[in-house]
Every structure is written in structure tokens, then in C-alpha cells.
């Protein structure tokens, strides 16, 4: 078995029931698996929810994540999207403090990254951005020299690519 740590994106279809999220999160902590992010919401069928879980571990850990999730009664299906090819997106909202001196510059950086300013009060810009991991990384790199305040992220959502 490889000892190399890999990051996987797992899509888990579950019964949309009371306690399911708690069941899954307690499984991860009880088994010592690390969740990088978890996003959840109802699907096209209101009796089910889909969770997108980003998890890091070696091959054996990831195999156990899959098997242990499968043991849960409320888990209907698990897809390891990393094996299939997928598209991922994450939404981030943040505020950024600007001054008269750098306002124009900041706006340009945001525009270049296709981040949208949805509110502008005095010296604070409120911004939204939706993109995949690489775009997200680039945005944060580009704005790191400015005063970024209050970041909130949804966690990754992912969907398999059609062949």
C-alpha cells in the first residue's frame, strides 16, 4: 500500500433525514479520518441529500472511508469523483479593506479574477467569487497583499464529468 497522502473528492448520496449529517461527521472523527471540507444540500429528489466531502489520506485510509461510509444505513451511494473526472466549484464571500490609494488597484485585481463586488461601503468592499480550486488559489494569492477580512467559504461542490 502506498503511504502517499492523496486528496479525494467523494460524492455521497444520503437519505434526507434527521441525524444523517451527525452520523457521517461522527464516523469521520471516530475513525480518525480528516475532512478538508464538507458541503451538503438537497438533490432533485427531496428525500435525498448529496454531500461532497473532500478527504485526505493514504490509499488504505481512503478505502476505509469508502467502506465505512457504505456501512451507514442512511448512505445510499458513494462515488469517488477523483477516479472519474469531475468539475468542482466553490463559492467564497469575503470583505476587503481598501484605501483611496489602492481602491482602483484592488478593483482591477478583483475584475481580473472575475470576482464580483456586491457591496461597497466606505472603505470596505464585499466580494463574491465562484470557481474551481486553481482559480480560488490564484485569487487568494493576488489579494494576499491587501487587508482581507472575514472570509467565508462553502466548501467544494463537485459533479462527475459526462463522457
Amino acid at each position, binding site marked *: *500500500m502506498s503511504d502517499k497522502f492523496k486528496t479525494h473528492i467523494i460524492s455521497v448520496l*444520503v*437519505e434526507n433525514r*434527521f*441525524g444523517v449529517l*451527525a*452520523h457521517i461527521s*461522527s*464516523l469521520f472523527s*471516530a475513525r480518525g479520518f480528516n475532512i478538508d471540507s464538507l458541503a451538503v444540500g438537497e438533490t432533485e429528489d427531496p428525500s435525498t441529500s448529496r454531500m461532497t466531502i473532500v478527504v485526505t489520506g493514504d490509499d*488504505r485510509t481512503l*478505502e*476505509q472511508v469508502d*467502506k*465505512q461510509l*457504505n*456501512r*451507514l*444505513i*442512511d*448512505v*445510499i451511494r458513494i462515488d469517488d469523483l477523483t477516479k472519474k473526472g469531475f468539475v468542482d466549484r466553490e463559492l467564497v464571500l469575503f470583505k476587503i479593506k481598501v484605501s483611496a490609494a489602492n481602491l482602483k488597484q484592488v478593483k482591477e485585481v478583483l475584475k481580473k479574477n472575475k470576482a464580483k463586488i456586491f457591496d461597497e461601503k466606505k472603505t470596505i468592499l464585499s466580494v463574491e467569487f465562484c470557481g474551481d480550486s486553481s482559480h480560488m488559489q490564484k485569487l487568494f494569492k493576488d489579494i494576499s497583499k491587501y487587508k482581507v477580512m472575514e472570509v467565508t467559504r462553502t466548501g467544494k461542490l463537485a459533479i462527475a464529468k459526462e463522457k
Partner: protein
Amino acid sequence: MKLSGAQILINSLIKENVKVIFGMPGGSLLPVLDKLYDCKEIKFILNRHEQGAAHAADGYARVTGKVGVCMVTSGPGATNIVTGLATANFDSVPIVAITGQVNTNMIGNDAFQEADLTGITRSVTKHNYLVKDVKDLARIIKEAFHIASTGRPGPVLIDLPKDVTMQECDFKYPKQAKLRSYNPTYVGHPGQIKRAAAMISKSRRPVIYAGGGVIISGAEKELKELAVKNKIPVTTTLTGLGGFPETHPLSLKMLGMHGSVYANYAIMDSDLIIAVGSRFDDRVTGKIDEFAPSAKVIHIDIDPSSISKNVKVDIPIVGDCKKVLIDLNKKMNKKPDTHAWLKQIKGWKQSHPLTYNGDNKLRPQYIIEELNKLTKGKAIISTEVGQNQMWAALFYQHDKPRTFVTSGGLGTMGYGFPAALGAQIGRPKELVFDIAGDGSIQMNIQELATVAEYKIPVKILILNNSCLGMVRQWQELFYDKRYQSTLLKNPDFVKIAEGYGVKGIKVTKKKDVVKALKEAIKTPGPVLVDFHVEGEENVFPMVPAGKAINQMIGGLA
């Protein structure tokens, strides 16, 4: 007709063919208790502590193969069964536990005797439910019994608020549980089974390593066929004892930390391990990096998560042990040549038999051996945890499935006595013994009141060495005999028994052992025998922690 939740619960339990509930009352259960008052079909055994009720349901389930049921009140009643659920969960025992809960509108308000049981028991149950609407109750009970008893069995908890038991709705018990997300695999993959058969045929030093899964699936006949037809030796785990007759020449008895020398030598030297319903627990494998270095592994288990968890598996077969073995036996066209291998194992058996000091001192192993002779190996044996458990495992001849009742995975002290009383209720015609230690027995000794009240004729054999023996043994061997907190100042167990109205016998000499055992067996009701055994007797052989399992100490002839 509309029925109350309490009545729906009882009618549903009757539909599930429940004959006995082990439990303890409380405020949140009052409406249910009141309906039970008129119920002829179900007997309620009043334990004296909720933990006792959970273990009793567990013991009942292990010897009957049916689902054990326990019922306790909210808050402390419910938290007291957590150890019982964890014990059952670890050893895959089907239990349905019903816990009272405060009224739904009070949940989360820190109400009197409130505890978040679905939260607390999430990791020690196979599944759990909080019933919020009486309309869901019948369906949930149906699902709970289905989940508990199918696939890899386990405990299911139903948390039942008091107001739900008083609400009314129409009652119709579902014929089937409909769970789209729960479909255990029973039939093994034919291609894998074919490959396994070929691998077995080619092997020269195969060993079957059988666990509790053999007993749960009732695969003992099929396992014996595989072993005997192909001349493959069999070792069992602690929970697998009785899955293959130990009186058979192919039996290697138990393996692992306190296994027989020949079982451990055989598994370490094997070229093929056929694991059936076992999970390569650390007490079995010892130092995992050095475990069976030249062995290929075929692993048959109903739980995919047990496979490739601890060791690398060459041929995984997910399925029910019995079904897979039936198919595997059909595919075995060519027997492996195990002639030389069996000869080598015979040599190990002769040079390293299971042994102990046969002097005139009262030694615990002697008691178990004599019990074995008197009962002809046919009794149901439950154990507590520690030295008593290992001696019972090693020195009793386990020949039949569902006769050895022990907490294997969790290792719960205080398990054996309540489990024995549950086992006795499940199989009233059998002789049931709890082989106990003086430490463990005190953890649920209040159940003496239960066996006295219902005249449950279990025989408690205390191997009394005035210490917490297994921990003391480790302190002796690895901590320079610095006996921190392991020496016990015990009560007079005979007087305690008599105080509860249970017959007590004290034995201090080897020559009185057989007489006392005979008297215990002859006595119609429950009996406690307090054997004052050698204090510093150790369980040997033994694999020290972190060593490979062929590096055993003690008991080597």
C-alpha cells in the same frame, strides 16, 4: 382502530416474535409498562442495573441467534446501557434496545433525566432512531429488527419519547422493511470463489482461521467440510470458539496473544490463510509487519470494511460465510497436498502442548478441566474478562457453536454474569456456567437478585485470586511486580450470595473441586462457587505486546 404508541410498541414486538425483554423501569416508560401489565406474550425480566439488562439481551442473542431486546428509561437508565451496546456492536450481536426519552417538546431543554442517546450511541450501534411521530413507530421497529439481524448483525437503538407512547394512530405492522440504502451482500462473487479454490488446491501449508462470523452465519458444517475433505487445519478466534470442534484432530484451538503455541506457529509458517468471518484483530496478529510473512490471504466476510483493514488480502470475498463456503466446497476439485504440513503440526502439538502445573495447589486451569470432564464439553460457558476468560477459552473443549459467550472485541468486565442469565433464559434446558474473576463478578454482582427472583439456575464459578489478575500478570512480567491498584480486598462471596438467597460454596483445596462442581450442577437453582485459587497463576503461553505471535513466553515445554 387507533392504538397508543405504547400499545403499538408491544404489538410490534409480538409480531417480531419477542418472548422476553430484559430491562429496568423508569418514568419515561410508564405508559409502556402499563400496557405490558396486560401482555401475556412477553415476559419482562427485571434486572437490577441497566447494564445487566443490555448484557442479558446480548447473552440471550448469542446462544439463540435471535434478536435480544432490552428496555430502559431515559437519561441515566439509557446511558447505563452504552457499555452493553458497545460490547454487542464489537462482537456483532443483534440487539434492539428501546430507551425512554423525555417528551418531544422538552428534547434539548435539559429536562429531568434527559440525555441525547442517539448522539451518545452513534458510534456504538449499527443504527439508531429517535421516534418523533407515532406514525413512524411501527415502521421503525420493523426496520430496527431487520437491521439488527441481517448482514453483519449489531445493536440498534430506538429512542422513544414518552409523549409518542401516548399519542394514537392506526396500527398496521409492515410486512417488510424497505431500505433502499441497506442491501448486504450474501452471495460471494463466483469468480473470486473459483480463484480461491484454485489457490487452496495449490497451497501446501494452508490454515483456516475462523472467527465469530462462522457462528453467526451458522456455517460450522460447511467449515468442517472444507477442513476435513481437504485436510486443512483450523484455528479459531476467541469469538469463533465452537465454530470448529476442538476435539477434532485438525483443530489447532485458539490463536493469538494467548493462543496455543501450535496455532501460532502454524499461522506464522503457513503459505495460505483462509480467513472466514474473522477480522485480523491485533490480539490475533501480534506485530502486524511480521505476521505470517509467506502467507497469501483469502478473506471471506460479510462486512467489506473488515477486509484489507489490517492485512493485505489476495482474494477478498464479500458474502455470508455459510453461503460462500457452500459455493467454495463445490468448487474444490483438487485437494491440496498437506501431508507434510500436518506432520509438522503434529510435531508442534507434541512438543508444545497446552499445559499447566499439575501439583496439589488449587489452580484455575484444573477447575476448568474438571468442569469440562463433568459436563462432557456440552455446557454453555460465559466468561468475564481477563485471566478467567483466557483459561475458559483454553482449557474447556469448545465443540459446538453458540455455547461460548464472551466479550471478545470490547473486553467488558462484568459482562459474563448478566450474559449467562440471558443465555439461560434463551436456552432453559442447558447447563450455563459463568466463569468469573473476583474483580469482574463485582461489576454486576447485583444480578444475583435477578437470578434469585426468577430462579435462573446459572452457576457462577469465581476463580478468586484476590487480584485483577490479567493486569497483575503484566505488572509481574513487565513492571517489576509493582502491583499498583491490582490487589483486591474482597468480600465473603458466599455470604453475599446467601444474602441474595443464592446458594454459595467456598472451595480452598484442589481435592474439593469436583465435589463442589457436582453439587453446583445438582442444585436446581442458581449457585455461586468461590474458588480460592493460586494468586500468582499466569495465563501462558503469552505473546508480549508488540511482538510477533511466534515469540511466545511461558508455558513452553
